[in-house]
């Protein structure tokens, strides 16, 4: 056991002290945040220019709907012909010209509405314009058929079905999305971690082979100790990196949002505006409360504990297989043929997670995949927010760890033969033979 801790410590320190690790750890959150900042900045820049849209409304029904906002100004043209209007717009280099003709019926008008512009207009702009015309047109039609639009609005009932399990646990449809976000994030994080740090283990095994130190080491320690030490050390390094990322990322995000604070408050303003629009029924406000409430309703503690358990189990399972691959080959370029079968179940887990679990978190496929150890870490994590009985979670964890012990024996066999094998390009047949040595 003393050996194991020595090896773990060396592997950990070796990873953590590595220059590229340090650079990666401290630079990637910076790069990420810089990227966000850049995107935010560019978007702002992009929308910087105030769009001026000329409106020629011959029907005089809609012109009043187009009220200028900060980013879009509407220039209402009156008593000009369409041809003149086009010329004016072209000369003034306005964004475009909305032309609403005069006709007998709303339908006839709707058919003939046109938007002239130099370049194809942005989709968002068009949607905004269309929404305004549609609203107005609907109201006109309602009035024409003798109905009061305000009355109609008042008659609208917002329905957010309140769900309740037989245990009395209250949920709502909205909570579903939230659950998906939590589960999906947990599953995806695990998936990324396994791939990144699995590769790291593999490289470290290959390094020991190519530097030929391996025989010196295993004359002192058992291969299984070296294997486990490597997996533990690398995972600790990985966890360290994640923690640093979370801290740095958090700090930087706070800084960036402070710098681009105006943006944020603008977004909030927009939200408030939206809420004001529906303030005659307080449903929206209720929903915001509901989201917060839902978040607390989520089995957060359960999710956290299971995340850690599945994280460890899944990582150990795949880590040992990555190490076996590293031992089987002489260089990283030879790893391709073995990587595929390793990545497949992981990809499958992600796909099953994002498609099947969303569809039905307790369906047969979701259930089965949340027990198969190669997919369970990802799939079960995605299911947990939707409420999975504890015994099922524990069973899945037990299967996972049980399989880990089997794979580690399997991996150790390949490992102990492979690390002393040079110059052979191993096939699967060869690997099966190694298992018998």
């Amino acid at each position, binding site marked *: 056991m003393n050996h194991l801790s*020595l090896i773990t410590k060396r592997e950990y320190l070796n990873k953590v002290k590595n220059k590229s690790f340090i650079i990666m750890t401290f630079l990637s959150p910076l790069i990420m945040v810089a990227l966000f900042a850049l995107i935010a900045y560019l978007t702002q820049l992009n929308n910087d220019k105030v769009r001026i849209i000329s409106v020629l409304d011959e029907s005089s029904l809609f012109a009043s709907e187009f009220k200028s906002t900060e980013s879009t100004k509407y220039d209402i043209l009156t008593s000009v012909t369409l041809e003149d209007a086009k010329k004016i717009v072209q000369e003034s280099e306005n964004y475009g010209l909305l032309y609403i003709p005069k006709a007998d019926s709303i339908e006839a008008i709707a058919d003939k509405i046109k938007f002239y512009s130099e370049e194809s207009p942005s989709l968002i702009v068009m949607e905004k314009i269309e929404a305004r015309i549609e609203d107005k047109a609907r109201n006109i039609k309602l009035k024409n058929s003798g109905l009061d639009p305000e009355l109609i609005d008042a008659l609208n009932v917002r329905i957010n079905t309140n769900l309740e399990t037989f245990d009395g646990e209250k949920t709502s449809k909205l909570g579903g999305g939230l659950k998906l976000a939590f589960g999906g994030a947990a599953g995806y994080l695990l998936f990324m971690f396994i791939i990144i740090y699995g590769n790291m283990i593999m490289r470290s095994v290959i390094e020991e082979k190519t530097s030929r130190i391996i025989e010196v*080491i295993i004359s002192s320690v058992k291969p299984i100790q070296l294997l486990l030490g490597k997996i533990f050390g690398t995972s600790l390094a990985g966890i360290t990196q994640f923690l640093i990322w979370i801290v740095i990322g958090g700090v930087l995000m706070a800084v960036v949002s402070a710098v681009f604070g105006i943006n944020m408050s603008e977004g909030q303003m927009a939200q408030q505006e939206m809420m004001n629009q529906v303030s005659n029924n307080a449903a929206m406000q209720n929903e915001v409360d509901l989201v917060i409430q839902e978040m607390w309703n989520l089995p957060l503690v359960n999710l956290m504990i299971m995340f850690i358990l599945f994280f460890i189990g899944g990582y150990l399972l795949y880590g040992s297989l990555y190490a076996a691959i590293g031992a089987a080959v002489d260089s990283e370029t030879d790893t391709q043929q073995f990587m595929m079968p390793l990545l497949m179940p992981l990809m499958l887990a992600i796909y099953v997670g994002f498609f099947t679990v969303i569809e039905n978190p307790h369906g047969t496929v979701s259930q089965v995949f949340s027990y198969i150890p190669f997919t369970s870490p990802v799939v079960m994590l995605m299911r947990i927010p939707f409420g999975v009985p504890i015994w099922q979670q524990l069973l899945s964890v037990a299967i996972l760890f049980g399989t880990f012990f089997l794979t580690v024996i399997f991996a150790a066999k390949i490992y102990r033969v492979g690390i002393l094998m040079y110059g052979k390009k191993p096939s699967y047949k060869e690997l099966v033979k190694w298992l018998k040595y």
Partner: protein
Amino acid sequence: MNNLLVAENIIKKYGDFTALNNVSIEVPKGSIFGLLGPNGAGKTTLIRIINQITMPDKGLVTLDGEKLHADHIKNIGYLPEERGLYKSMKVGEQALYLAQLKGLTKAQARERLKYWFDKFGIGDWWNKKVQELSKGMAQKIQFIVTVLHQPKLLIFDEPFSGFDPINANLIKDEILQLRDEGATIIFATHRMESVEELCDHIALIHESNKILDGKLIDIKRAYKSNIYEVGLLTENKAETENYLKEKFELSEATFKTINDEVKFNIKIDNGQSANQLISHLTTKGQLTHFVEVIPSVNDIFIQTVQNN
């Protein structure tokens, strides 16, 4: 208990390939034991079994009378043929790590490393990275790490490969000194000439079988050919040759002399003695060179392999 290490009837198969076929060796305490054989004969497999890196399919290995178990690792120092160091680690850090894996405490390891580093005059390498060292420099570190925990049994697999003659000599002297201090040494090589001056016991392995073993001197006695190199200053060379031809088996000799001697390799029969040969020779001239031809390990090896 005269033997430190005994391996009995070791069989090791890799699939259909037999790497060791019923091989037994006995390594006496305090000896330098040469494990010889061409590449791929099975030397490294046997060494790995002794180091518990691989397990034999059949057979028993005992160290100091005890069946080999995990704790024995501390009593063995092994310098493999395929050797290396972690490239990105610092020399001192790495040596400390490897020493601790062999069971030394950090303080012990540091103290002994200081001794060896001073001895080899490499104290200033401590903070260098291994990738900055030359191959020979790295080999020195590996040697130090192998002997640092003062094991009873030292196993060197091709220890001189990669060393220049000066450093090879340095290592050779160290090996001899370690033997004098009581260590038992197994020395595996396919270069027979280096065996002559170091080993007192040898075992020859060829194609997975042990074909010869014993004390080097006994083996040489058993393989002696009764041939003597003779250099003789004589007036009449042709007559002398004919005279000797009648009585002994002659062959051409290639040794070097400074006078104009006749030179022969003369084989005497079992019934005859060297003195008889000398008395015949002295009647024909002045004897300047008379040496018994001792078979080299290389000759013995080639001869044994051919006989098998």
